[in-house]
């Protein structure tokens, strides 16, 4: 979009306006995330500029056992179990949906993605009422099952997208060479769609790690996750340690974003047949 010498004044004006608009948009998106980072090193007790000296006191607070470290431990427990369950079940389902054509396939697909669209409060309330009957409320098992439901659509969508670019003739070639369907999946399909499965897993992890509404319904004090503690902290009193925690979580999300970008890059290379 280099400025062309023969561009009319209207065009130049439009282009300038577009630049300003887009710049403002990115500023709006990124400024809040960037602006909290310096505050986390604040020496004073208030969450405002100018900073009163530099200190790591709030980070020290984050690493105290309660609430943040116990919350982190609970979050990691729930998110890792959710990731394993949702990735395995979701990948199988996506593979089944992509490779065969049974009646009601569209309906099943619609059902699979619906937890993404149903408001979280509804899912939380419904699961709470159902799980209360089986004593699953205020247990890790209940929370993990509920989070798996929420994470499943992300795995199915991501793996399905990968499978759409997958050349099924490779499977046919494998079976014509005598491989059983399982062997063909393990040695041909799996390596090719692995990046998609892994990014689905990252999505599942983040979905659970970030989730607070269903946790409000299903987690008892023994299962309070990190976001659940953050919700209480934000609602009741703005404790500066939350900004230090936020900074650390921003670093984690940057890391995860890089992982997903690398996986996508790898997946695209594999698809173009240059492993």
């Amino acid at each position, binding site marked *: *979009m280099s400025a062309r010498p023969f561009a009319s004044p*209207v065009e130049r004006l*439009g282009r300038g306006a577009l630049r300003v*608009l887009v710049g403002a*948009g990115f500023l*709006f*998106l*990124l400024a*809040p*995330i960037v*602006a*909290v980072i310096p505050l986390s090193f604040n020496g004073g007790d208030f*969450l*405002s500029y100018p900073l009163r000296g530099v200190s790591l006191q709030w980070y020290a607070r984050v690493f105290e056992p309660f609430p943040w470290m116990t919350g982190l431990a609970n979050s990691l427990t729930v998110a890792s179990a959710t990731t394993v369950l949702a990735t395995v*079940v979701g990948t*199988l*389902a996506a593979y089944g*949906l992509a*490779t*065969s*054509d*049974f009646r009601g396939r569209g309906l*099943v*697909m619609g*059902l*699979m993605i619906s*937890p*993404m*669209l*149903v*408001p*979280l*409060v*509804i*899912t*939380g*309330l*419904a699961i709470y*009422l*159902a799980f209360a009957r089986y004593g699953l409320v205020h247990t890790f098992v209940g929370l993990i099952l509920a989070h*798996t*439901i929420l994470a*499943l659509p992300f795995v199915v*969508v*991501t793996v*399905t997208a990968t499978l759409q670019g997958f050349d099924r003739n490779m499977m046919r070639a494998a079976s014509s060479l005598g491989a059983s369907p399982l062997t063909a999946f393990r040695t041909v399909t799996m390596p090719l769609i692995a990046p998609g499965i892994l990014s689905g897993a990252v*999505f599942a992890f983040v979905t659970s790690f*970030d989730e*607070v*509404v269903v946790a*409000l319904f299903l987690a008892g004090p023994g299962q309070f996750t990190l*976001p659940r503690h953050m919700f209480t902290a934000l609602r009741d009193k703005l404790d500066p340690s*939350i900004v230090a925690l*936020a900074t650390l*979580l*921003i670093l984690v*999300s*940057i890391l995860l*974003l890089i992982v997903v970008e690398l996986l*996508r890059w790898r997946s695209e290379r594999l698809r173009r047949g240059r492993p």
Partner: protein
Amino acid sequence: MISADQQPDLRRKLRRSKSRARLRGLLLVAPALLLLMVAFVAPIGGMLFNAVANPEFRSAMPRLADYVREWDGQELPGEEGYRLLAEEIGRAYSDKTLPGAAMRLNYEQSGLRSLFMRAGRRADRLEAPYRRSFLELDKDWGSISVWQAMQAASAPFTARYLLQAVDREITWDGEIRLVEPEKRVFVDRFEATFWISFVVTSLCALIGYPMAYAIAAAPPRRARLMLVLLLLPFWTSLLVRTAAWVVLLQRDGIINDALIWIGVVDQPVQLIFNRLGVYIAMTHILLPFMALPLYSVMKGISPNHMRAAASLGAGPISAFWTVYFPQTVPGLGAGCLLVYVLAIGFYITPALVGGSGDQMISYLIANFALGTANWSVASALAIVLLCCVAIFYPFFRRYVGIDRLRLG
């Protein structure tokens, strides 16, 4: 070459292999389907049941419930009815099921809870003639509306919670009417929910459209970087982003400092715990959901179209409106649908950055469930909200589809 007598055999083989593939597909989908059925579909069905179930009165006083079901509702029951009432109240009081039933009756008519609990406490003093005995206890026992309330509470199902969720009530003779003005709280919240979602969707479209265009038009390397920057907030925890806005928008936050420094205002302005805060924070959270589908559509539009329009004499503005914009409508529609549907269900962000007048319907549902443990009203509100989302579902599958849900 396949000879004629081999053909049916081959056909059968093909059919068998196809049906085997179909079966394999079903088996692969089965675990996910089972999980969804047990932990998602069945619970939502249960919640629907919960919204219309009416068990409290019947489970506490089953014989009385049968009796009032038979009662014609025209005039006060005779001595037999009052005798049954005395027996059932006494038994329900001693096995501690009376409070639930009394609470349920109180929804029908306020004051009935204390009337029934008082009778329960003194049940051993009630004796024949029962009707007079009840009237001596409280003259309200002679009112026909008490019996009508019992009749309404004795049906296996009730529409009262669903009606209550839309500020309606059903009178005893079957007329549906608005509740008293001071009790009309839910329709107001539904309207606020739709309005906030609409404003947020519009803001997302206004900000997201030029951004998506700029990314689609940028050279690949820069486009990649811009996409990553667009996705970063998306990958950042919702609570982190909400916390960031609370910090920035507070009275002595950066935004107020900046506004005062520029000289726009000379006093800090209230930017948070009001509607403005909700719009800002929600737009920030939902913007990537608008920009990504727009970008994926714009990426596929050839720049030659605009060049052709320009060479044919169209000015930049008319070329944009007549050639470019119509091609982006599917992306815009998908983005708007996605943002609107997600916005309708927002709870955490308005709860943390809004005032009491800016809460959305999800907040009420959570409050009824977790605050006052009124599961019936919470379930009824959830059903109404679910219907509001379900309206969009067919459009969703048609215009958004599973591909554009791919985020990141």
